[in-house]
């Protein structure tokens, strides 16, 4: 077992034993479910909207070359500097380079999972720049020096009390249980950071090819300040974020808000089309768009799993995933948690290192059922398992599977094995729960049924004889 799998198991063991955590997450999600369903019902047809969204993303992803070219040429026409980053290193180097070139003193950043993916903050801090997260949830986990717990709700695992203690500790604010007061405490600090920052970094929710604009959707207004107050704005955009037309947002913005947060639409929806143009009173002097591949093209090359690039990072699959709800977001050890993370991380970071995430699933399919862009998530977990075995089967498991096949292809052998099992069965209580118990992984926490005295086959034969 590799180190990532080991860490995953240890963390999963810890979290599943933590009943307080389970209750906290269940409570946090109960409100989401109710709101999500309420706003789903406001669509003329939610299933129809899903079909259409999947179709639009299919079109965009299957013609990614064309749409990216269109997106970039429109952006450049208005003076945006575009950098194509093949990998994380190139993206980090470029952004650090921009900061150095402009002798940036302070950086403010709005929420971006893509930035998490390339560990951008680490790189900037190592290069000597201060980076402050301006999204409240992200700011909280940044103060705690931990990664986001959930790709949409980064601080979902924390109680108000914990946040109050944190702010008291780090910001010197008065302890309070009132969410508004907590928000104000962060806001007082963040407002000063916006004014001081000379570079703002954002992600993008969508990249509109038709108009050469990025779309950012948010609830706090922090992304607007992050992108418009500093004199430089850098947007880090995964190449899969492309939508063909501006009008596609009419579907995708409410869909993302509904699936992601149980809202009809988020409070602030902004399009960014370039740096400040002549005659415009505000906006950044420079606008950089960093287009990140970072092995997304490997998913693109895999026709079977290409639809994983449809993902709009709404997090809906996490919210319904019984695995996520029991092991929590930090157990995954990945940028992208939950089912979508289990599907794409093996592509982004290596199948053999991350195949355990695809195995740690009951394949219940709640993720696929809820995905607004209809990614075949749980079947892709099966595909990852198959691909991992194909590339490198585990010796013992391969042996067990071969024995299983041998038995199941020979009915007489199967029946003989069952009879042996029945004979050996009375011995099981002697070893139950010990290292000798072949069923230990099951019987440690659950009772195991006895083999029936007579199999169906035997009952059937008796019935036929009489």
């Amino acid at each position, binding site marked *: 077992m590799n180190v990532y799998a080991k860490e995953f198991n240890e963390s999963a063991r810890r979290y599943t034993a933590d009943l307080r955590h389970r209750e906290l997450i269940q409570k946090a999600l109960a409100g989401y479910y109710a709101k999500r369903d309420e706003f789903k019902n406001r669509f003329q047809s939610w299933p129809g909207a899903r079909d259409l969204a999947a179709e639009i993303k299919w079109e965009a992803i299957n013609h990614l070359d064309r749409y990216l070219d269109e997106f970039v040429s429109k952006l450049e026409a208005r003076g945006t500097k575009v950098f194509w980053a093949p990998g994380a290193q190139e993206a980090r180097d470029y952004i650090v380079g921009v900061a150095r070139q402009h002798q940036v003193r302070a950086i403010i950043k709005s929420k971006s999972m893509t930035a998490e993916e390339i560990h951008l903050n680490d790189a900037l801090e190592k290069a000597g720049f201060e980076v402050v997260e301006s999204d409240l949830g992200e700011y909280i986990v940044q103060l705690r020096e931990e990664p986001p717990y959930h790709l949409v709700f980064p601080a979902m695992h924390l109680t108000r009390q914990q946040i109050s203690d944190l702010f008291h500790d780090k910001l010197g604010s008065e302890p309070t249980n009132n969410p508004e007061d907590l928000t104000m405490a962060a806001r007082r600090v963040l407002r000063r950071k916006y004014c001081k920052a000379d570079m703002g970094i954002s992600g993008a929710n969508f990249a509109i090819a038709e108009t050469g604009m990025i779309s950012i959707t948010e609830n706090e207004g922090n992304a607007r300040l992050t992108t418009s107050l500093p004199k430089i704005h850098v947007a880090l955009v995964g190449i899969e974020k492309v939508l063909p037309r501006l009008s596609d947002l009419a579907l995708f913005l409410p869909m993302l808000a509904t699936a992601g947060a149980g809202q009809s639409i988020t409070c602030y929806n902004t399009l960014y089309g370039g740096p400040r143009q002549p005659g415009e009173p505000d906006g950044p002097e420079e606008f950089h768009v960093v287009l990140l591949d970072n092995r997304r093209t490997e998913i693109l090359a895999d026709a079977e799993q290409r639809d994983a690039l449809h993902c709009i990072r709404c997090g809906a699959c996490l919210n319904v995933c019984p695995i996520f709800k029991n092991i929590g977001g930090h157990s995954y050890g990945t940028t992208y948690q939950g089912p979508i993370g289990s599907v794409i991380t093996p592509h982004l970071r290596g199948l053999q290192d991350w195949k355990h995430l695809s195995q740690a699933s009951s394949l219940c399919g709640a993720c696929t059922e809820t995905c607004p862009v209809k990614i075949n998530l749980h079947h892709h977990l099966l595909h990852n*398992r198959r691909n991992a075995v194909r590339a490198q089967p585990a010796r013992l498991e391969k042996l067990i599977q071969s024995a299983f096949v041998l038995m199941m292809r020979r009915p007489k052998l199967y029946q003989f094995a069952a009879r042996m099992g029945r004979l050996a069965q009375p011995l099981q209580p002697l070893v139950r729960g010990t290292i000798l118990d072949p069923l230990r992984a099951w019987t440690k*926490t659950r009772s195991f049924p006895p083999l029936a005295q007579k199999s169906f086959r035997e009952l059937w034969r008796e019935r036929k004889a009489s």
Partner: protein
Amino acid sequence: MQISLFIPCFVDQFYPQVGMSIVQVLERLGHTVDYPETQTCCGQPPFNAGYWDEARAVAERQMTVFRDAKTVVIASGSCGAMVKVFYPELFHHHPREAEARALAAKTFEFSDFLVNKLGVLEVGARFPGRATFHDGCHGLRESGSKKPPRQLLQRVQGLELVEMSEAETCCGFGGTFAVKFPMISTAMGEVKCASIADTGADYVISNDSSCLMQIRGVLDRQGKSIKTLHLAEVLAQT
């Protein structure tokens, strides 16, 4: 109608009464049932573990066994989904693809068969008690079969059916997942069982014995006396 039974290996060995109940119900409705005795397993364990060559080898055997069957009724939503949904994928671009598709097309999970193939909702069953129904994920999401078991249970005399809040939440079984990640599987089972207990039901019914094995396993350790029953066992009672 001439019906061939597919009794999955673990039903054969652990829950033979489920198979016998299916025989009873189908015969009561006037159908002829046969059981090809050389059948074994649908191949789901190697398939889910990623060993598709091995799964194919097991599946091929069942394809041969049921080649001449007119209609196949299978006693599990999960193994039913294996045959109906995953055999075609497993044999995609394989010489026996057409045969895999043919078996998929003529195979029905028990409740789906009664309601959607035969159009039968009332099977003349009587079973007094308060029960809640657990949707096996494969039956629910791969086969989209939420209604049939409920339609059948609603017409069982004396049975009061109450929905649990987490009816569609996975019980945590998931085949080898249950032993590869026992801590996660058990936690999921606990969430499920808490929801079952909240209904105050005396019985939890499902059309998947594998889910019931998991639910029973957790309930036993919790010292709860709620009984687990397969849908067929309820429908067989008169």
